């Protein structure tokens, strides 16, 4: 049902309805933002990725082939953008180009109004950042986004068996980290 509605919106947009595009984005903007936020760990980068994803959707949706669901396709774009940013960040830190000032600014700006929520989210991010990136992405998609392995496989292009292994090890490690904190 949801899939049909999404496809309908895509078709309407291809036929020229900008309103359909707006509706599609309003439906998925929080999903995009929170997925990016969990992947990259701060508001500024998540905001940048969200804007990029919306622009990519606008430019590429006309070529959408309906082979996967719109939701999976949007996740895939968000995932790729987030991983690109993480990779660039790794290279920057490898070349020592990322200043600590820049990092401080990135972590000070936020849309979360409740201090406790922010603190809790930061703790979760700290734990997620201790996972290897492959485990982290599967854990986020499975545990937080509650996607099934088939969907995750379509997003990541990895086998279901490998994903299950990644999720299992990520969960074990996260629980270990939580227990250590107590």
């Amino acid at each position: 049902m949801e899939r049909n509605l999404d496809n309908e919106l895509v078709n309407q947009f291809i036929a020229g309805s900008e309103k359909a595009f707006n509706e599609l984005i309003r439906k998925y903007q929080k999903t995009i933002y929170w997925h990016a936020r969990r992947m990259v760990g701060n508001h500024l980068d998540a905001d940048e990725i969200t804007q990029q994803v919306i622009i990519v959707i606008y430019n590429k949706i006309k070529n959408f082939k309906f082979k996967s669901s719109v939701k999976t396709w949007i996740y895939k774009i968000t995932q790729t953008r987030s991983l690109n940013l993480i990779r660039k960040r790794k290279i920057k830190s490898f070349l020592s180009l990322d200043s600590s000032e820049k990092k401080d600014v990135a972590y000070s700006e936020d849309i979360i109004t409740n201090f406790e929520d922010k603190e809790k989210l930061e703790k979760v991010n700290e734990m997620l950042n201790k996972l290897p990136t492959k485990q982290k992405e599967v854990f986020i998609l499975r545990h937080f986004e509650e996607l099934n392995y088939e969907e995750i496989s379509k997003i990541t292009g990895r086998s279901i068996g490998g994903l299950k292994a990644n999720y299992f090890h990520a969960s074990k490690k996260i629980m270990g980290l939580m227990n250590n904190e107590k």
Partner: protein
Amino acid sequence: MKNKSEIFIKYLDNELSPEEKKIFEKKLLDDETFKTEFNLFKENFNSLKISKIDVNENYFNSLLPEARKKIGQTKHTNFIKFAYLLPVIIIGIILFKTIFNNNFNENNFEQLLNSYSTNEDAVVELIDNVYSSDQDFLIDNELLEQLYEIENINDESVYDYLAETVLTSDIEEYLINQLSEEEFNMVYNELLNKNFNNLEIK
């Protein structure tokens, strides 16, 4: 018997076999301590999901208009970009031909890299482009699955090592290429010793 938390994770992920699931659920019914332990685990595990986060909704209200502004700007600047792009493409072709005529090697790359070193983003972009690929995973998933299947090698440190190696492979490959044969052998032996130390047979 497997570690309890491992079984809890698999049960919550619906990954126990029907038989295992039956045994697990019977244990939940019969053993009060086990049930309490499981409920505590489940509660902790799910506490990672913050059910409702208070956010400034203005941000989400302004997201679409902001993106639309950028989309408009992109459309407007596309023609201008193309006008700039044309000479860049021509220069690019000339450079490409020149580099390959001079037998492109790592030294050329170093020179090219140095010439970019005044611009941080350009350096990052360059390395990212040269060493990134959609298929940058040296160890494929089949191997990971096989490792996962073999219970005795189901060791977290091995798994993490593989996962990390897979991810950073492109950077490591670049570094490895910079090493002399002697240095490479030294690092290789060091790694070999490390693996033996970490992989204690339990």
